[in-house]
């Protein structure tokens, strides 16, 4: 098979593209995942709440409810199989008024009908026994014990790496510029690095998926890029709260939540602001104020003085309000898996399973779906030095002394981890960050940035001033000292 010829091309390497790639790698087929970014995740999967929803928000019988509940159950297995962090912390939807209790009762009904395990309504006092820092004004809460929070960087890396272990190919910095269609059949995609030919093309392009879909002639949905802004606090806040806290939802979305991440940081957000530009990840004064107000409503003493960073993600909301998952009749072989808004991260593995089954059933004439008998379900993440016992650390350091050399002081990341991240495909400072947590701590990479850059330069054998923050034009350094002076005259 020529280099650019595949059985399936997946446009987009977010949680949807990656989990579909992994699911399809159970078959003996050639898969290409194409993403324009230099590192994954880069779109909505990169900056979101990373929640594993219980599955009580959506109407019984709806597509979202089905995928969400199933996806939730899958994460509790996948986290061990694929070795990514999930904190099975549970969630509370908090009611501040009698009217909101009615809303909780509606959600409880949905939860029970959707088969969400263990959902119940508890009193505000009971909630405060478990979460002493929540507002005294909360009078009741809906508890969903199967909800959790995932390390989204690790999860996407895990899905993608598992797919790659099982034969899928990843093409970064590759931008799809058009579809190749002939006689109502999909033949592949055009990219800035040439054509990729395949009889099946999956559109998992996130905020750009409506545009890709329109190239195939399907304009049945529009993407409304929706910005969500967040605060992320220092890990010293660990235990300030232990679960995922929601207020009752409004029309604008599920509202501002406060949660403890899988690693113990406090997270608050998101806003839900529609915007034109799908690539604008800027935070705003208004947005950050709104997050802070919302967080303080749930947790009055929200310790914002321990904030280490603010960020914004852009999610792919649709004008229909639904996921846009559809195998098109024309062009045959083209499938949209688009508009995967909340609970998208939760639903991803269930959607992947569905997509894989559907393709096998409907497109067997285009691609032979033979079972990949060598499929390896497991993969291991890079050792997480921070969360090891001292005995484990000592054993690791004995095997490889690079695991006894510190690179990131805040998150205790070692040189061994950084080298391993690069070996597994990290090419930028922020890719190393997403693989290892180097730079996610309270000094926000002031200490480790020069050290990580140096290791990248050494391991990739590139000059230090070619190292980028996140690919593209994001070079950290612009040249050597003395160059400007010497070139001035």
């Amino acid at each position, binding site marked *: 098979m020529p280099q650019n010829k595949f059985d399936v091309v997946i446009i987009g390497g977010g949680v949807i593209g990656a989990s579909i790639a992994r699911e399809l790698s159970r078959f003996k087929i050639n898969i290409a995942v194409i993403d324009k970014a230099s590192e994954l995740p880069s779109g909505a999967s990169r900056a979101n709440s990373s929640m594993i929803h219980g599955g009580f928000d959506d109407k019984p019988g709806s597509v979202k409810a089905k995928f969400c509940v199933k996806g939730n159950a899958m994460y509790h297995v996948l986290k061990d199989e694929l070795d990514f962090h999930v904190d099975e912390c549970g969630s509370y939807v908090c009611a501040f008024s009698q009217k909101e209790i009615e809303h909780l009762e509606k959600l409880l009904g949905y939860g029970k009908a959707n088969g969400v395990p263990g959902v119940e309504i508890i009193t505000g006092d009971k909630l405060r026994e478990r979460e002493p820092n929540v507002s005294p004004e909360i009078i009741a809460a809906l508890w969903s014990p199967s909800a959790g929070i995932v390390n989204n960087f690790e999860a996407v890396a895990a899905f993608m790496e598992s797919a790659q272990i099982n034969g899928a190919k990843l093409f970064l910095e590759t931008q799809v510029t058009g579809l190749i269609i002939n006689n109502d059949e999909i033949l592949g995609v055009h990219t800035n690095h040439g054509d990729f030919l395949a009889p099946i093309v999956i559109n998992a392009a996130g905020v750009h998926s409506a545009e890709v879909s329109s190239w195939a002639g399907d304009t049945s949905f529009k993407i409304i890029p929706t910005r969500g802004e967040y605060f*992320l606090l220092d890990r*010293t806040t660990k235990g300030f709260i232990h679960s995922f806290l929601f207020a009752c939802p409004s029309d604008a979305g599920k509202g501002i939540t406060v949660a403890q991440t899988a690693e113990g940081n406090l997270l608050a957000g998101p806003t839900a602001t529609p915007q034109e530009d799908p*690539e*604008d*990840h*800027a*935070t*705003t*004064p208004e*947005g*950050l104020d709104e997050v802070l107000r919302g967080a303080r409503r749930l947790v009055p003493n929200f310790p914002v003085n321990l*904030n*280490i*960073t*603010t*960020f914004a993600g852009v999610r792919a909301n649709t004008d229909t309000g639904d996921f846009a998952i559809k195998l098109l009749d024309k062009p045959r072989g083209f499938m949209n898996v688009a508009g995967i808004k909340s609970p998208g991260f939760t639903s991803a593995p269930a959607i992947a399973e569905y997509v894989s089954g559907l393709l096998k059933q409907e497109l067997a004439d285009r691609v032979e779906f033979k079972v990949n008998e060598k499929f390896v379900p497991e993969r291991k993440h890079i050792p997480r030095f921070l969360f090891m016992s*001292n005995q484990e*650390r*000592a054993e690791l*350091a*004995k095997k490889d*002394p*690079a695991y*006894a*050399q*510190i690179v990131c*002081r*805040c998150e*205790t990341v*070692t040189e061994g981890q950084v080298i391993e991240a690069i070996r597994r495909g990290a090419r930028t400072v922020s890719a190393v960050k997403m693989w290892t947590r180097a730079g996610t701590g*309270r*000094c*926000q*990479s*002031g*200490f480790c*940035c*020069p050290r990580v850059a*140096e290791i990248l330069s050494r391991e990739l054998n590139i000059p*230090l001033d070619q190292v*980028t*923050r*996140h*690919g*593209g*034009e*994001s*070079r*950290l*350094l*612009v*040249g*050597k*000292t*003395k*160059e*400007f*002076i010497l*070139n*001035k005259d």
Partner: protein
Amino acid sequence: MNNNIDVLIIGAGPAGVAAGIGARKEGAEHVVILERDWDAGGILQQCIHPGFGLRTFREELTGPEYMHRFIKEARDIGVEFRQNTMVFEMDNNPDGSMGVWTMSKERGIERLEPKAIVLAMGCRERPLGAIRIPGSRPAGVYTAGTAQRFVNMEGYMPGKKAVILGSGDIGLIMARRMIWEGAEVEGVYEVMSWPGGLRRNIAQCLDDYGIPFHLETTVTKIHGKDRLEGVTVAKIDPATRAPIAGTERFVECDTLLLAIGLIPENELSRMAGVEIHPVTGGPVVNDLLQTSKAPVFAAGNVVIVYDLVDNVSDEGLIAGTNAARYAAGKLDKDMRRIPVKGGDNVRLFSPQYVTGERDVTIFMRITHPIEGACKVIANTDTGIKLYNQRLRYARPGEMNEVRLKAEQVKELGSDVNAIIIDIQPA
């Protein structure tokens, strides 16, 4: 496991190396300094500009030259240095015994049980997240110290046109450094009504190079996707610190350097259960630089951020000396401790207790500048006047000192419950 270490010092910057010298001179047999970087010297390694040691050596030295003198002396008298060695955990044992976990390529993971410890981890720079500037997150935004490491130690330039936010000393030094390297510096912006750094640095680093200095102005937005493309700056209302609408201005630049404050680095101190002062962010210490945990001492910027390295070295020496005394069982366990309290215009100070065991310098920083004759005073809560020194001015960016003699403190009656320090208009 004992490892026979009398005094273990965490950090080989100016405080730590001086502590090593102090401990050895006091008779401690086995003194070890742990340093996580590849060489001793701490942040002074990258401070290649002159201006260090004027008081100690009556010479103007560069940072590395200043440190070299101390490091050489420490090595000559038998202080052991372990580089590339990070302390990642400290025990907080109820019985007061100490355990320190270290890691290094050479020695792997190791637990040390010294008789006494000196915390000398210094401080770190406040990052962007601490001040919540909206906008995007492109490459080209660095703390001034990180940029200084790139320029002075790696030999690379972070950018060609810089804006500097905050007027802490490293920011001022880096403004000049960027100019020397042929880069442009559009201006230095300070949210407060007065400079954060020393006057001498404003004069030597900004004025001499014609770099505009804007007080009561801050960066309100960061622009750029991949690489920084510019920042929005705006005047602020000094009463509320909120940006004043209509004063916004876009400044094109590819680099934003932050010099917005330094934070004592006390993660380990917290792990060890050492009491941390809510305002200084450093350990609560007495005049022997002993913390709330008897075997643990602390000196330098880990306690309180100093202006001058000479003071840091002095404090390191004191901490090392007393740590050695503690290790030898020579420190009185039931010393009287008189609390020091700050008056209305005192933002922070150290030490927080005096024992009368030695002459002490209390270092303090004020909240609001006094541009005119004023005096530094120290009185007991019973009204005894201990210190009164006239000054021509007092500024938050420049530390002030109260000096007390050991006898003065020793003589105080048991009715004295506090010593109150302050700076007031004369």
